[in-house]
């Protein structure tokens, strides 16, 4: 034992030294250094003289990061993606290629991961691209990157991404809220979708789910809506935009895109046509707005929207509380608005209704808005499969007035109803009528009942 002690001591000391050197070597040779060396070598070739060449090729190798406290992110993608802002790198191989159309989303203010996904904190390829376990935001495939526009630009129509508006429209009209909550409103049969874009950034899964719900979610009660590929994609884009981004003041202030489409929407929302006309079409309460952007400067128009009394003392135009970019959008719209626009806006307005019809219309709108069509069908035809319920499917409501009294229907809407089982020994049906008394007011419920009664007036019993 004695004799090997010194040798053992030496062996272990040497091993400790070697392992320490190995650890240092492991820490000193990360992959990103090789990428940077390759890039600088490439750049050096493009330099005119030897001095410039050596200056570039001996540039220090450092991790490059963009700090984005307003977005609560740190992006280190620029450590390897070195040619992103360099137009001469258009045809360079990845990861050095130039990124076209960056403005106004420059990397120094936006980083990369807010649009592309991935793990900004990482400094090796696999982890940075986020396609690893325990990272919920992998790199988005090329076709879906535009969906990220919706993460910040939530209310406006985003130019170049019609899928977002289409997805939102499909969501609201196909009754998704009947089963899914979004921003607090909706049913509880399916999962809450408010943060779906944050929880599930896997576009292929989402798209497949819209096309074949049961194939990806075994046992799901979600009916097959027979969406087309384009519709499924639009809905996927919309889902991917459902995140709650932390946005500092700078980002909140530039979030709204001042586009003419958004401006038109504001014009309709604020009911400007009630006082103004465009090219003679509209009301006579205020001045005609045709060509107003040529007669007045943008600053003047902006001030008019903020503080009408300042510009025209005694004006009866209300001071609308609009964000800077919203006002810009309105002005952009007015710059190109014509009498045809005014005509189409007027025709889109609902006609005057009497009290009874107004109530029925309100009921119809509630019926669509709260997602009843999701289960009872766009034409109220029912037909969505509901295993082990009597009848095997969600009932049609076309004959509600025949089968029930109004009080019964109001009671069902208010308190909900679990469908009677076809076979009591088998498990309960997945779909049921939820209770709406905590979501809808009594008035709302009455109006929905009125709407249902308006579909098929009760025939006189003979």
């Amino acid at each position: 034992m004695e004799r090997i002690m010194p040798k053992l001591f030496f062996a272990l000391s040497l091993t400790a030294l070697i392992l320490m050197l190995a650890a240092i070597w492991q820490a000193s040779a990360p992959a990103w250094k090789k990428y940077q060396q390759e890039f600088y070598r490439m750049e050096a070739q493009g330099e005119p003289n030897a001095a410039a060449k050596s200056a570039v090729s001996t540039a220090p190798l450092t991790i490059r990061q963009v700090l984005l406290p307003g977005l609560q992110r740190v992006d280190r993608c620029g450590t390897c993606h070195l040619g992103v802002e360099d137009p001469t790198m258009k045809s360079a191989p990845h990861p050095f290629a130039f990124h076209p159309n960056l403005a106004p989303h420059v990397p120094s203010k936006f980083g990369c991961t807010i649009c592309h996904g991935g793990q900004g904190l990482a400094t090796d390829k696999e982890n940075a691209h986020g396609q690893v376990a325990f990272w919920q935001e992998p790199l988005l495939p090329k076709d879906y990157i535009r969906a990220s526009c919706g993460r910040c630009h939530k209310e406006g129509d985003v130019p170049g991404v019609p899928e977002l508006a289409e997805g939102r429209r499909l969501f609201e009209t196909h009754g998704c809220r009947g089963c899914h909550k979004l921003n607090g409103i909706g049913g509880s049969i399916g999962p809450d979708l408010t943060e779906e874009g944050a929880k599930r950034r896997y576009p292929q899964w989402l798209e497949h789910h819209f096309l074949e719900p049961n194939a990806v979610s075994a046992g799901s009660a979600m009916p097959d809506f027979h969406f087309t590929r384009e519709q499924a994609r639009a809905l996927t884009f919309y889902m991917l935009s459902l995140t709650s981004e932390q946005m500092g003041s700078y980002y909140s202030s530039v979030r709204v895109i001042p586009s003419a489409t958004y401006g038109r929407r504001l014009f309709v929302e604020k009911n400007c046509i009630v006082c103004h006309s465009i090219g003679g079409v509209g009301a006579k309460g205020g001045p005609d707005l045709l060509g107003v952007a040529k007669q007045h400067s943008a600053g003047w128009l902006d001030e008019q929207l903020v503080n009408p009394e300042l510009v025209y003392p005694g004006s009866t135009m209300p001071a609308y509380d609009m964000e800077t970019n919203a006002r810009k959008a309105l002005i952009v719209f007015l710059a190109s608005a014509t009498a045809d626009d005014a005509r189409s806006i007027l025709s889109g307005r609902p006609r005057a209704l009497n009290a009874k019809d107004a109530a029925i219309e309100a009921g119809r709108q509630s019926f669509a808005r709260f997602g009843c069509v999701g289960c009872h069908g766009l034409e109220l035809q029912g037909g969505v499969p509901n295993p082990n319920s009597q009848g095997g499917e969600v009932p049609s409501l076309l004959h509600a007035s025949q089968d029930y009294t109004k009080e019964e229907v109001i009671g069902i809407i208010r308190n909900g109803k679990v469908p009677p089982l076809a076979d009591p020994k088998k498990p309960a049906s997945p779909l049921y009528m939820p209770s709406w008394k905590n979501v809808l007011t009594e008035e709302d419920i009455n109006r929905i009942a009125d709407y249902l009664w308006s579909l098929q007036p009760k025939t006189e019993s003979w």
Partner: protein
Amino acid sequence: MNPLRDAWQSIVRRDPLSTDKGKSELVFLNVWLHIHPAKVRKEHFKLKHTWYLGFITFFLFLILVTTGVALMFYYRPQSPQAYQDMKDLRFVVFLGPFLRNMHRWSAHGMVICVFLHMCRVFYTGSYKKPRQFNWVVGVGLFLLTLGLSFTGYLLPWDQLAFWAITVGTNIGSYAPLVGSRLRELMLGGHGVGESALLRFYVLHVAVLPSLMVLLTMVHFWRVRKDGGLSRPLWKLKPESSAPLVTIGEAANPELAITLVPAARDKTYGLMEVVTGKPLFETVTEEEEEDTVFSYPFAFFREAIALLATVTTVMAVSLFWNAPLEELANPAKTPNPAKAPWYFLGLQELVSHSALLGGVVVPGLAVLVLLAIPYLDSNPSRRPAERKWAIWAFTAFVVVNVVLIVIGTLFRGPGWALVPPWVHVPGVE
């Protein structure tokens, strides 16, 4: 006359190590080393008797303190920065992954080694009179080790950490009367959150390490005062029957039952005198051969144990990364949610009965563990004469290991029994 030599000798005041006096002075004039006796008996350092487990556990603790302090330079105990700092350690800090791995694997190693050390002390009967209370101190150190591992487990602030501590503190809350109050004190709230992270951090870097150091000092001191490291007395050759003079409190007449006469243990209050004729006839000729200077005999072995520990931890840390899952999410419980592995036996028991399994059985186990030296009236350390004790303790160890294995490998979603070779679809 030489000023350089004078300066040197003002710092190193002992004789050269080539002399016996120098070898002794190295020990008793040095603040770091003077817990050792100047001379030791070789029996105290038999590898196959102690396996140096106590040393290894202590060395792992030293590694943990060093790497822990290094990690503190880059870690903030706040949500969500803690998780970002873990990512930075992994991707950006030089030697970050290596140091974090060393810290994690040393921690697991220390829990295992402290348990093995406890087993060794039991199997060699080294807790018997006069060492009973040191066993109690040792159990205290064992519980502190678990506490340090548990408080450190939360700090990465990922899903693994968050839910392991949620489960762990919930198990603790089953203790009667004090359970829920204790849980609230530990968490600084009703659930795991910002306050819990800060409190666990303070416990982990300041409070528990200080207690650990204090108890370790007591533990080492008592080992020395109780006669030095454990030795396999029942295996040694019979000593001569020459009359002996004992000095100090070292007389242990009980040990005369075995083949070993009264031991002369190194507990002298006086410094050992090594030059010239010995003042007392304290050792026989045979014993003289077995007694060597601590330097280099003992220190060599300790150094080798230290190096072996350090190189093993380094090698493991080079190749295996400590886990880091997604950011802690209170709204999303993984299924199954498991406590750290050393508490999985407990979680398994709790799954059968919260009160019995979570409180009564473990509580009794700890109490019995603490009381072992006082319950055991058998003065013999020979395995052949303690069969019942050995079987009982072995059963205890086996049950613990089996429970932990079941909890780790055989429990799947919903705590259902799922063998590890079966893959459950849909489990993340």
